[in-house]
């Protein structure tokens, strides 16, 4: 019995997900074992799906068979008694087929989803285990495309590819067998004609894939152009470059148009061709069958059966191109992912780590050297900070200040010498324990798309509300939080209310204060804050800093002049050290900077004096 074609699935389209960039660093030999290991726990789902697919392929032969019997015995043979039986059988077959198809679809998706989840969670765990060295080199867009597109290809590989491939094999084998049983001649004919359709499909797939890649690239360019024109609108308008931007946008827009039309032209060449060939072949089959019936080589019922079988066969064959694509993309994506999966984090806890609940806060650098990618950032740095002391670090952009403080919580490992906290080399500390001893206000204050409160409580999600409120006050967050639409419950970050650089820095300070670390590092923490707010923060902090070791990086000498010790860095070396009074007296970089910075002040003093003289 012919039946309606199954509807297109709402989920993954046969073309699969968006962006593909094969080539790049795939390790395809490792994919097989990796996939096997991932799939093992979920294999029962996969096997049930394959079983259902096999039985489903058999069940698909039932309706055409029944239609054939009906034509032979009921319509031609006028055996009316058989009719109710055939009808009951047809309905039953449809129910069985439906149940099998349901089982196959849900189990194979469960199979793929299990693996997908395993990959996602595993990759996430590995990604967050990586530290600064990794993220210095990572390209967010590329990594995201692996985590989204590649992961989706692997899911498609298991959810759809795996069962579609088995269904394909079973269907072709069983249906061909069915046709052969009904009529060996038509079976042989099918065997000859079908490869023709195969070839067209595969060829189409090869040609259309690069065309789609071109579309994605052009779309990417258009998105970038658009993004810049919007995000940079102030500059666009300031220089009256609207027409320039329009031309740029229209050019990429036109390119997208051209690529789309090119791909559509390809599709428009091949898809109707496949359709017409399929249509023509089923017609030829029918006519040859009709000739056989006239010759009494087969019955009319068998012809109806074969015609029905043929329809069953055409569906999976049409999906063949997509299947091949799915397979190739799945393996390629797997190759890229396995690389991410196997990459160990550069910085790990040692096997027998040292840990203390709360450190005293003694920091010691001994002949520390540090090089990134062979470029030296620090050279023979030695100093000691007793618990509760305050050290300031001064130097030009790129002199190694941040690198130096990043060594204490082991964001990087030294390449020479050692860094100690409480007399233990930081490489002997348990990484988690070490990092919770050191609160760092990073130069770039990143906010997550979460409420202000959640951002402050980032290091201590269960912090009591009073504590959060207290540090928010100290860091002058409440001063601007009150102006936000929902106060501390306002969602900030990329997807929320945008905060100014100074406001972000204040949140960042509150975040570090909340965890109350014995060692506090302020890396240019108030660069974007106005002087009065800075003063208020310092005022609130002065009481809190008392009992902890503090390392401070700042440009303005006035803010660091009371430090117990000031280290002046130049090109990765400590060139001067001492307190403010000592350093100002000595000839050197510090005094040079002091003179420049206090020039404005001198100007003022002189102007004031002159003004006073005038009156």
């Amino acid at each position, binding site marked *: 019995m012919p039946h309606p074609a199954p509807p297109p699935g709402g989920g993954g389209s046969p073309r699969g997900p968006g962006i593909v960039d094969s080539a790049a660093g795939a390790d395809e030999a490792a994919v097989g074992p990796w996939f096997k290991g991932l799939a093992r726990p979920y294999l029962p789902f996969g096997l049930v799906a394959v079983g259902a697919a096999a039985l489903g392929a058999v069940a698909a032969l039932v309706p055409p068979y029944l239609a054939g019997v009906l034509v032979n015995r009921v319509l031609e043979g006028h055996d009316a008694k058989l009719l109710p039986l055939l009808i009951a059988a047809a309905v039953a077959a449809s129910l069985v087929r439906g149940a099998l198809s349901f089982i196959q679809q849900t189990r194979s998706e469960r199979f793929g989803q299990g693996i997908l989840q395993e990959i996602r969670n595993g990759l996430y765990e590995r990604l967050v285990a990586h530290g600064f060295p990794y993220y210095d080199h990572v390209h967010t867009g590329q990594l995201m495309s692996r985590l989204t597109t590649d992961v989706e290809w692997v899911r498609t590989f298991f959810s759809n590819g795996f069962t579609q491939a088995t269904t394909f094999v079973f269907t072709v084998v069983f249906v061909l067998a069915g046709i052969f049983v009904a009529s060996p001649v038509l079976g042989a004919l099918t065997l000859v004609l079908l490869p023709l359709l195969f070839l067209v499909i595969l060829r189409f797939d090869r040609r259309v894939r690069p065309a789609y890649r071109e579309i994605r690239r052009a779309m990417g360019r258009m998105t970038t152009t658009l993004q810049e024109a919007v995000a940079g609108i102030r500059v666009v308008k300031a220089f009256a470059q609207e027409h320039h931007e329009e031309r740029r946008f229209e050019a990429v827009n036109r390119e997208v148009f051209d690529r789309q039309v090119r791909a*559509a032209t390809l599709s428009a060449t091949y898809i109707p061709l496949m359709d017409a060939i399929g249509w023509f072949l089923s017609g030829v089959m029918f006519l040859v069958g009709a000739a056989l019936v006239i010759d009494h080589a087969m019955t009319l019922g068998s012809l109806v059966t074969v015609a029905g079988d043929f329809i069953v066969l055409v569906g999976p064959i049409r999906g063949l191109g997509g299947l091949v694509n799915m397979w190739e993309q799945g393996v390629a994506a797997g190759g890229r992912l396995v690389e991410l999966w196997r990459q160990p984090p550069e910085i790990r806890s040692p096997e027998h780590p040292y840990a203390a609940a709360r450190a005293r806060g003694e920091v010691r650098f001994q002949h520390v050297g540090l090089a990134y990618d062979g470029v030296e950032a620090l050279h023979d740095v030695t100093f000691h900070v007793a618990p509760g002391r305050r050290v300031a670090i001064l130097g030009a952009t790129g002199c190694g200040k941040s690198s130096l403080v990043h060594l204490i919580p082991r964001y990087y490992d030294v390449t020479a010498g050692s860094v100690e906290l409480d007399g233990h080399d930081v490489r002997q500390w348990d990484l988690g324990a070490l990092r919770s001893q050191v609160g760092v206000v990073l130069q770039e204050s990143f906010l997550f798309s979460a409420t202000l409160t959640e951002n402050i409580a980032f290091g201590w999600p269960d912090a009591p509300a009073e504590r959060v409120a207290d540090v928010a006050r100290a860091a002058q967050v409440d001063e601007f939080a009150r102006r936000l639409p929902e106060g501390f419950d306002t969602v900030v970050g990329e997807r929320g209310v945008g905060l100014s650089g100074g406001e972000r820095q204040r949140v960042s300070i509150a975040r570090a204060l909340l965890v109350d670390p014995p060692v506090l590092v302020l890396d240019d923490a108030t660069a974007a804050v106005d002087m009065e707010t800075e003063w208020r923060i310092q005022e609130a902090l*002065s009481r809190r800093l008392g009992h902890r070791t503090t390392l401070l990086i700042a440009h303005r000498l006035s803010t660091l002049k009371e430090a117990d010790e000031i280290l002046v860095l130049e090109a990765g070396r400590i060139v001067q050290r001492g307190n403010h009074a000592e350093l100002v007296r000595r000839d050197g970089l510090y005094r040079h900077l002091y003179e420049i910075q206090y020039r404005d002040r001198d100007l003022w003093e002189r102007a004031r004096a002159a003004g006073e003289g005038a*009156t």
Partner: protein
Amino acid sequence: MINRIGEDEEAVERPFDLAMTVRLLRFLRPHVRYAVLALASLVVVSLTTLVGPYVTKIVIDRDILRGDLGALWALGFFYLVVAVVRYLAGRFEQRSIAVLGQHVLYDMRTGLFRRIQSMSFTFFDRRPTGKIMTRILNDVSNLNQLLSSGLVRMLGDLFTLVGIVVVMLSLDTRLALLAFVVLPVLFLLSTKLRRQIVERWRRVRRKISNINANLDESIVGARVVTAFHREPENTRRFAALTDETLGSWMQAIRANAFFGPAVDLTGTFGTVLVFWYGADLVRTGQVSIGLVVAFVSYLGSFWGPVSNIGQFYSTLLVAMASAERVFEFLDLTPEIRDVEGAVPLPPLKGRVTFRHVSFAYVPGRWALRDVDLDVSPGQRVALVGPTGAGKSSFLALLSRFYDPTLGQVLMDGHDIRSVQLDTLRRQVAVVLQETYIFKGSIRDNIRYSHPEADPAQVEAAARAAGAAAFIERLPEGYDTEVRERGSRLSVGQRQLIAFARAILADPRVLILDEATANIDTETELLIQAGLRTLLAGRTSFVAAHRLSTIREADRILVIDQGRIQESGTHEELIARRGRYYDLLRAQFQLQEQVGWFRRDAVAPLGPDGS
């Protein structure tokens, strides 16, 4: 990870709106020939679909039952011809639809882009970049589905459906009416059940976009995660998220997997009915076997069109929501635009006049009040005053980013509202506090203000701005690729690029919002030097924070509460001992007092010196 996305999504569907649909259809008008071509070829394709089963009937009834072998050859040839026609028509159909759709997409995107570009700052102040982009990219694509494939295919499917119904009725009315019993069920499945499936997939997509947003933030914020040792907590939260996703995905798949069998069963019932009654009719000789077989075949062709029409309905609702958003943007009128009969601004000498200018962003809340000022060409003006005093508003009026609420701003005696905007902005350059860096080379970034500039000019501008030294130290010099996020440039270096940009534009009037950020001393010196070159020989307005910048001004305006409180040179104002004097005194007193390790914290003086 902590984040909250997908909670404030925009409406995905809207009820059908005729006026909006008519307006959408207008986008088809310039490309109507493609629509006609597509429709015509669709009709041909559906006709060939109708032919198949009918030929089956003829073969069975006439040739097989009569044993007429010769006629089969003719039919074979006929099949071939129809197949070729079907191929050609299908080709035309698909290509025309695609070209039509792409034309509409192109037009809409270009239209939206132009409209957005022409909007003034107030428009951008309130909208995140992502939201604006979604309209141009996603909403337009949603409309495309409706306007090209959706509409044309729907008409084609309607034609096919009517064709099948007509053919069946004419073959045998009784059998046809019986077969039509399944039609309502099919329609119900394709609308009701499908809507449920679409809804479930939407939920899955939302969950996935949550996961992706999470991943993105985990990568961009990786350093903070490391610093606060949030790895275990974040991994736990992420796993909870993937769990949720798995759950909703399986729900969607179950609905999906139920759909196919339900349609199949309905089809089976229809077929069974036809056979049941058909067997009786064949037995009594009222219809032929071929007719019954053909009928079942036609019944099988019902599903495609019915399903597509159901899908069209979903597309239509989604498109209504998108259309509303697209039209909202297209209907905007920019607040700042050339007036009727605007004339080009002649080359400026640089005289700037404010005539009783008052300005409010929001009615009633004055940012500037009755500012009256005359600046002669080449004068250097520094604006000082506390945050929120009105300095930025003052600067924004100069290049006509906003229009004054009362009064006039004149350049060389021309009201800037009466001249063409681009001729004004080419001669009045602005350097903002935060420098936007476009993706591309440093050269292109400098050249942004003057795209036709040659390399020598770019390098000269960079030298004048004091940017050449650091650029030439970069491995690829002026060809070094930079981009907005994750760019390797420091705040100071970005400033210098902005200076070079402005120098290259060579404006007569320069507006500068001096950066407040603390920059290391060496860079600071570079910036001071660059600034001097930048200001030389032009009328300039600087919102200044550094005394060295302020002191060199020909004229200092002390602005507070939207008014010019004092005006004069540094010496004059110091001697006067008014607001300016107090402001400076407070600032230096504060500077004395800032310090992270002060033991004696004393409250600083307020900006008014009290």
